[in-house]
Each structure stands twice: as structure tokens, then as C-alpha cells.
């Protein structure tokens, strides 16, 4: 260990995680509008007071002690989730945040690593959701398999979009994905097979005879919300997705995606197959969104075109931008902010798109790399220069 990793104390990072967990708990628990508003104000002021240098110190503490931070985060999340074991609404929010984070991790691979823009993220969530709706309607198909197929199908349909995407760049590629997002919704609205504007019902998840949509009866007579099932599943999914994306970043694959994003010409001269890497990132990202969409649809019990609009796609993109493009860790707090705040603070419900656009503009102006900027890739902590 060199001087840098010694100087970053693990306690600072753990303390920060503890604060985040306590804040999340208080925020989800708050019921009165004034409480929510006060917490939002305290959070914003706290972040502003902390300033950039303290933020950086916390981040280096996290980076220097990755495995202990991971365990701390897991334990703290488990405690928070357990405290809400009987609260339907809070658990639904938690699961939603985690599933959207999985989808945003997918976008992060596409946009943050390979530089492929995707303004149709919600469409791929939708492909996952509709796959779940169609397949769960037929008895006898194991639901674990359904989730897998939803991911594969989203990846596959994404590869139809990749051909025009590879032939365009920048704004034009963005326009193609916007067009796809609009096409997707319109197609669903006019298609009878997919239930038209009313959408389809989706049956709850059932794995090995365990029905996710029944409340959990405890041996000592209590009853936990059925959403706890979905929270645990989403938690596991998110864990796998984070691990996948992290390993991707800290490998030759992540390096290849970076090379293609930063300078396509130089990459091709050094032997990179630019198209191949874009396809890899795009397909992987869409598959993650598809999986998240399937579980989300099973949890909420229905899918409708209105849930998978361009506006929803923009919400996904704004989560990635707020969190820090290319940084998987930033996505979770950003998703929590964007998804929970309007639900809790009803005053802004109507204005949420306005508010998030403002957020994104402010972040791009004052902190263009996002709330938690991506760090340079250093494969092992011992190589970090002092």
C-alpha cells in the first residue's frame, strides 16, 4: 500500500455511507409535506456546504477500501429495507429506484463507455415489460426464464436499431433513437395484440412455487409486505449489474469501449473494430434495461404505452447525467432523487419534468461531469500514484 491509500481513512467513507442511509431512511419515512421539503433542503444545503474537496476525500476513501465499503453498503441497505418491511409504498419506491438503476447502468455502458447515445431507454424497458406480459399470460413458462428472454429480446431488437446507428454520429444518432422511442409507443398504441392504449395485465412473479405477490407471513405471526420480495430480487439484480459493469470497466473490454468513444479514428488505426464494440455496448445495455423492465412490469402488474414514452427515456438519461456519466456508483443516488422526490413532494409532481430539466442544466453548467464524476481507471489500488 502506498501513501495515498493509507491517508484515505476507511472511517470517513463509512461515515458518509451511514449518513446517506440515515438520510434515505428519514426521507422515505417522512409523511408531512413540510418534513419532505425540510429534508430536501437539508440535503441540498449539506451537499453544498460539504464542497468539492470533502467530496473528493470521501470518494478516495471509498475507492481505497472498495470491498469493505461494498459490505458496509450492503449491510446498511439491508437494515433500511428491513425497517420498512411492512410499508408497501416505501418498498415499492425502493424497488423502483433499484430497477431503474439497473436500466441506467445499461445506458451508462452505452453512453458513458462506448459513447453511443440512446434516447429510447424506456422503449427497451418496455420491450422487457411487454415480453413479461405476453409470456406470463401463458402458463407453464418458468418466470425466471421469462426474465432472461426479456433481456435477450431487448438486446436483439436493439440490434435492429444498431445498423442505422453505426452509419451516423452525434446528433443524427441521437435523432434515430428518439425516432425509435416515438415509433415504439405509437406501435403499441395501435396494436391489438399488445392491448392498445390500455396495455396489458402482467401476472406477478412466481419462482419455484414462491409467489412474489403474496404478503410474507412470518413464523411469529406477523406479515411483511409482498413488495419485500421484489425489493430483494431487485437488490440482487442491481448487485449483479453493478458487478458486471464494474468488471467491464476494469478490464480490456472497458478500455476498448473508452478508446472507441474518445477517438474512433485513432482506435481504428490501432486495430479496434469500432462497429463491434459499439454493438457490444448497445446490446449489453439494452439487455440490462429489458431485464429491469420485465421485473418492473411483474411488480406493478400492468404495462401500458404511456409508461414507456420519450419523456420516460429522458428521465433515464437525466439520471445518468446527474449521477456522473460513466460512474455506476453515482446512478443510485441520482435515481433516488429523480424517482422519489416527485412522489414524496406532491407540490412538484406536476412540474417534475420542468424541475429535472433545470437540474440537468444546472449540473451541466456547474458540474459537467455529474454529481459523482467518473474516476480514471486504475486497475489495482497499489498502482494509484501518490
Amino acid at each position, binding site marked *: 500500500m502506498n501513501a495515498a491509500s493509507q491517508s484515505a481513512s476507511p472511517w470517513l467513507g463509512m461515515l458518509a455511507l451511514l449518513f446517506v442511509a440515515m438520510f434515505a431512511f428519514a426521507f422515505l419515512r417522512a409523511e408531512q409535506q413540510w418534513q419532505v421539503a425540510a429534508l430536501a433542503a437539508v440535503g441540498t444545503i449539506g451537499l453544498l456546504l460539504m464542497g468539492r474537496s470533502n467530496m473528493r476525500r470521501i470518494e478516495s476513501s471509498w475507492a481505497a477500501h472498495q470491498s469493505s465499503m461494498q459490505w458496509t453498503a450492503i449491510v446498511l441497505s439491508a437494515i433500511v429495507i428491513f425497517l420498512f418491511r411492512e410499508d408497501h409504498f416505501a418498498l415499492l419506491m425502493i424497488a423502483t429506484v433499484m430497477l431503474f438503476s439497473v436500466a441506467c447502468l445499461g445506458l451508462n455502458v452505452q453512453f458513458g463507455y462506448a459513447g453511443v447515445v440512446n434516447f429510447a431507454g424506456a422503449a427497451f424497458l418496455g420491450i422487457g415489460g411487454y415480453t413479461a406480459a405476453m409470456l406470463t399470460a401463458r402458463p407453464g413458462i418458468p418466470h425466471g426464464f421469462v426474465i432472461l428472454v426479456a433481456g435477450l429480446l431487448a438486446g436483439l431488437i436493439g440490434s435492429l436499431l444498431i445498423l442505422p446507428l453505426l452509419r451516423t454520429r452525434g446528433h443524427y444518432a441521437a435523432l434515430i433513437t428518439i425516432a425509435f422511442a416515438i415509433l415504439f409507443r405509437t406501435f403499441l398504441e395501435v396494436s391489438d395484440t399488445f392491448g392498445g392504449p390500455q396495455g396489458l395485465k402482467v401476472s406477478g412473479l412466481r419462482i419455484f412455487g414462491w409467489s412474489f405477490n403474496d404478503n410474507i407471513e412470518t413464523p411469529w405471526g406477523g406479515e411483511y409486505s409482498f413488495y419485500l420480495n421484489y425489493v430483494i430480487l431487485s437488490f440482487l439484480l442491481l448487485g449483479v449489474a453493478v458487478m458486471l459493469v464494474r*468488471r467491464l470497466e476494469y478490464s480490456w473490454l472497458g478500455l476498448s469501449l473508452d478508446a472507441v468513444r474518445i477517438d474512433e479514428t485513432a482506435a481504428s488505426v490501432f486495430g479496434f473494430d469500432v462497429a463491434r464494440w459499439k454493438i457490444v455496448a448497445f446490446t449489453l445495455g439494452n439487455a440490462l434495461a429489458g431485464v429491469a423492465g420485465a421485473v418492473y412490469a411483474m411488480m406493478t402488474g400492468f404495462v401500458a404505452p404511456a409508461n414507456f414514452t420519450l419523456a420516460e427515456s429522458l428521465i433515464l438519461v437525466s439520471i445518468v447525467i446527474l449521477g456522473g456519466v460513466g460512474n455506476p456508483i453515482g446512478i443510485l443516488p441520482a435515481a433516488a432523487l429523480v424517482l422519489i422526490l416527485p412522489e414524496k413532494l406532491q407540490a412538484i409532481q406536476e412540474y417534475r419534468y420542468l424541475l429535472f430539466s433545470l437540474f440537468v442544466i444546472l449540473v451541466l453548467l456547474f458540474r459537467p461531469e455529474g454529481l459523482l464524476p467518473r474516476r480514471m481507471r486504475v486497475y489495482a489500488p497499489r498502482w494509484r500514484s501518490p
Partner: protein
Amino acid sequence: MTAVLLDCRQLTVRFGGLAALNKLSIQVGSGEILGLIGPNGSGKTTFFNALTGLYRLDEGRVVFAGRDITGFRPQAVHACGIARTFQRSRLCLTLSVFDNLMIGNHRRLSLGFAFNLLRRKRFAAQLGQEVERASTLLSGFHRDLPARLFEPAAALGMIDRRRVEVCRALIGEPKLLLLDEPSAGMTHDETHELMDDILAARARLPGLSIVLIEHEMGVIERITDRCAVLNFGEKICEGAYEEVVADRRVQEAYLGVE
């Protein structure tokens, strides 16, 4: 000239009505350093771009190491053993020096999904080897560079960036190195230092051939075995440095004649 490594015949690249390269024939021998000179816009960089597959040839053939590589895509050209630097530095500034070198080393890396995502121990072993290789290569250029392996490329000064760029081209062990004006943006002393490094690198890799685009005639005189002079996409003269600078057409086109 020893065995011919690169044989370009009648290369022509047209942009609309303009022939950026006009029936250009150039040969490079094995282990030779060829200087490429000519006024701005005479087609030097176009030649590199056409050779590396970035531009499509309208006419002509390219034979490299006995193999016809005409019309190959950039990736395929690189796989044959041709690496280059760019006139304006194209390092990935936000990535570490090591990552930049690994971009040049891409062909040697294991890129399988299972290897990268699941076999992390084996990945770590390969990573260790590559760190070793990168350090060795860099230390041949400057002894302080290996210590900066995990700094962002943006933290380096101009001359070190150029060194890293040359190393990025060399780490893939090419047979032919194309250097596009490596002295651009550097002081006279820095240029001198970099050229020493390049000569030292070639001394360690005797089979390596180099084509060097350069404006500073001192550099050309010092390190090239032979020169070719371009003007308006055509080769107007070729030979040893002394012959070339004595040539009347070269003086008119390039060196300035009253």
C-alpha cells in the same frame, strides 16, 4: 536498398477534382528510415492516411511484406504490422498513460467476455505482465516515465506525450512505424531529445522501418537514410539528403529560391 518492406505503386487519392496524391510510388526497405518532406498540402499526411486505410485509394497498389494490402480497412492494416502517430497528438487525455499504451497493444490483449468478466485471476496475471512490458518500453524513452504510468495522459508535458504516442505505436511491435511530424509544437531542444529516443529505440529493434514526415531539415539530415520530396501529391525527387537538397526542383518547391 535491402529487401523491400513496403512497395507503393501509383497511389492516387482524389478529393473531388483535386488529386491529393497523384501516381505516387514509394518504396521502403527493411530497417530503413525514410524522410518524407514537402510543403504544406503536398500530400504527406494524405499518404499516411491512405496507407493506413483511413482514405480509400482511387488507384494504385500497396504491397507490404510481400502481401497485397490494397483497400484493407484500418484494423487489418494494423494487424499486418503498420503503426502510426498523428500530427496533432491523439492520445486519450482522460485515460492513464498505461491505458493509452494498451490501446496500441490491443491486438495482444485477450478480449473474450469470459476472460475479462469471470476469470479475474487470469486477467490480473495478464494485467501484471502488460504493466511490466509497458514500464520496460517507457523506461527506454525516459527513466522517469514508468513512475507516471498511472497518471492521466493530460498530466504529461508535450514531449512526454509525444514519447507516449511513439511508445503506443511501438508496443504492438510493428514492422513499419509512420511518424507524422513528431516535432510539431515542440522546442528545438525537445525535438532533438525525442529524435535521440527514436534512434535509440530503433537501435534496439533493428528490423524496424520508419517513415518520418518532418519539416525541420536538421532532423531529416540527422536521422534519415533516404528522403522523398512531395509536391502537389507527386514525388518530385528522391535520394540521400545531400542529393535531395541540391536538387533544383526541391529548392524551388520547398526551400525557397530567389
